[in-house]
C-alpha cells in the first residue's frame, strides 16, 4: 500500500479512490481506539496543528480539535472574529505568522471558495512556510472534504461497499459545500448519486457531474438507499429562492409519512446543524434508525485518519 497521493487535503477532487479507501479503512481502526477505556494514542505527539476558523463552526471545529487531541498533537485555536484580521491583516500574512512559530499543519475554514487552495499555493513560495500541510475544513460553497469522508464512512458501515448504491442529496445544493464534496466522494466510491430540491436551489448544468436531478422528494425516497438532507443555508442566500420555510418544509422537508409503507426505507443523514421542521421533521431526525449522531461520532475517527495519514507521509 502507498501513502496518500496528496500532501494537503484541499478537496475530494484531488483524491483518488485509493486515497479515499485508505482514509476510510484507517478510520475503522481509529474508531476502535475511540472505544477503549483510554482513547488517546501518541502518534502525533511531535506535531503542532493550528485550527484557523474564519467562519463559525461548532461540530467541525470540536471534532477536529478532539481528533488532534486524541492523537496527542499540540493544538492552537484561532477564530477570525477575535484576531488581527479585524485590524486588516491578510490571510497569507496571518498564516505565515502562525507558521513562523513552527506549526506543522493548518486546518482552515473560510467563507471564500478556493481559500485553502490559495493558501497552499501561496505558502509554497515562503521558505519558512513551505513544509506546512493544509486541511480544508470548508471553503465557502466549494468543498468540505472531511464531511464527505465521514458521510461515506457512515454509509459504508450500514450499506457495505457503496458501488452501485443509490444515494440522494436533498435540499440546498446551490449553496452547499457538502453537496459537491459528497457527490465527488460517493462517485469515486462507485455510488450512483442524485440530487433533489427546488429548481432554484439546484445549480445549472449539475448533470455534467454525472448526477441525476429530481424535483419530487417522494420519488427519491422510494428509489434510493440513503438520503443526505442538507440544511437550508440562509446565511449564504442572497435574494429569495423559495416563498418561505413553510412551503419548503411542505415540499422538501422529510417527514415520517414519506418513509411509511416502504420495504427498506432509505438511511437518513444530515450534516448538521439541523433546521428542525424545515428540511427534516423532528420525528425523522429522532428516530432510532437516524444516523445523524453516528455521523458526528464517526467524524472524529475520520479526521484522526486524515491527520494521521497526512502526517505519516514520508
Amino acid at each position, binding site marked *: *500500500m502507498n501513502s496518500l497521493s496528496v500532501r494537503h487535503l484541499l478537496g475530494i477532487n484531488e483524491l483518488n479512490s485509493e486515497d479515499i479507501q485508505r482514509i476510510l479503512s484507517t478510520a475503522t*481502526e481509529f474508531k476502535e481506539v475511540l472505544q477503549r477505556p483510554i482513547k*488517546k*494514542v501518541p*502518534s*502525533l505527539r511531535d506535531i503542532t496543528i493550528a485550527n484557523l476558523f474564519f467562519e463559525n463552526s461548532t461540530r467541525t471545529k470540536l471534532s477536529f480539535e478532539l481528533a488532534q487531541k486524541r492523537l496527542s498533537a499540540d493544538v492552537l485555536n484561532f477564530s477570525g472574529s477575535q484576531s488581527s484580521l479585524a485590524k486588516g491583516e491578510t490571510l497569507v500574512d496571518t498564516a505565515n505568522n502562525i507558521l513562523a512559530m513552527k506549526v506543522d499543519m493548518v486546518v482552515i475554514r473560510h467563507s471564500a471558495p478556493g481559500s485553502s487552495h490559495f493558501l497552499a499555493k501561496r505558502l509554497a513560495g515562503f521558505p519558512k512556510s513551505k513544509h506546512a500541510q493544509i486541511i480544508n475544513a470548508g471553503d465557502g460553497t466549494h468543498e468540505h472534504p472531511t464531511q464527505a469522508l465521514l458521510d461515506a464512512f457512515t454509509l459504508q458501515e450500514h450499506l457495505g461497499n457503496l458501488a452501485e448504491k443509490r444515494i440522494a442529496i436533498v435540499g440546498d445544493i446551490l449553496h452547499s459545500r457538502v453537496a459537491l464534496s459528497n457527490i465527488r466522494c460517493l462517485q469515486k466510491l462507485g455510488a450512483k448519486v442524485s440530487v433533489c430540491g427546488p429548481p432554484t436551489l439546484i445549480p445549472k448544468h449539475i448533470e455534467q457531474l454525472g448526477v441525476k436531478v429530481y424535483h419530487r422528494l417522494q420519488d427519491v425516497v422510494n428509489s434510493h438507499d440513503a438520503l443526505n438532507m442538507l440544511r437550508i443555508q440562509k446565511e449564504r442566500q442572497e435574494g429569495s429562492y423559495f416563498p418561505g420555510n413553510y412551503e419548503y418544509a411542505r415540499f422538501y422537508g422529510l417527514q415520517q409519512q414519506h418513509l411509511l409503507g416502504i420495504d427498506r426505507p432509505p438511511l437518513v443523514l444530515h450534516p448538521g446543524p439541523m433546521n428542525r421542521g424545515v428540511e427534516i421533521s423532528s420525528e425523522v431526525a429522532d428516530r432510532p434508525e437516524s444516523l445523524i449522531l453516528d455521523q458526528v461520532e464517526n467524524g472524529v475517527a475520520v479526521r484522526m485518519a486524515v491527520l494521521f495519514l497526512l502526517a505519516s*507521509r*514520508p
Partner: protein
Amino acid sequence: MQSRLLWNGKHMQERIQRLAIQVLEFHAQYPNPVLIGVQPRGTFLAHRIQEALAQLAPELSWDFGLLDITFHRDDFRRRNKPAEPAATQLSVSLENRRVILIDDVLYTGRTIRAALDALQSFGRPSSVQLLVLVDRRLTRELPIQADFVGFKAESQSHQKILVEWEEFHGQDQILVANDNTP
C-alpha cells in the same frame, strides 16, 4: 534476496508445542493469563499457541486478543514505509490481569516497547510476559527480554529473519536473509 533455511516446519511445530506447554505451566501458577498476539505477524503464532492449548487442555478456555501497535510506534515520520494499521481485537479489560504478549521475532525490542505502551489503553495489567518464537539476542536496542523463547538466533542487524506460516506463505519455515532494504 538470498535466503538460507534456519529451521523447518517440524522444528517449528515442536517448539510451538513446547511454548504452549510453558504457557500451561504459567497458568498453573498464575491462573487465566490473557494471551495477546501483536499485529500483524504475531497473530499467526498466537493462533498456533491457541490451537495447541486447545489440544493440550480442552477443558480450559482462554482470554485471547490481538493488538495493533501502529499508533504507538516510535518511528512515526522517521521511516519511508507508510504506516499501515491493522485491527485490534481485545474485548477484555486488562485491569489486574496477567498478560502474555505473543510475537514472532524479538529483534530491536521497539515493537514490544510500543506494545507495552498500547496495552496501557486497556487497563493496568498486574504483569506482562513476553513469548516469542525467535529471539535475535544480539541486536537489541532497548532493555527488553523475552520470558518464553522458541529459538535463539545469532543473526546480525544487516540480516533479516523471515518466519513463514503454512496458512499464509504455503509452508512453515524460518529463513535468514541479507537485508538490502535501506
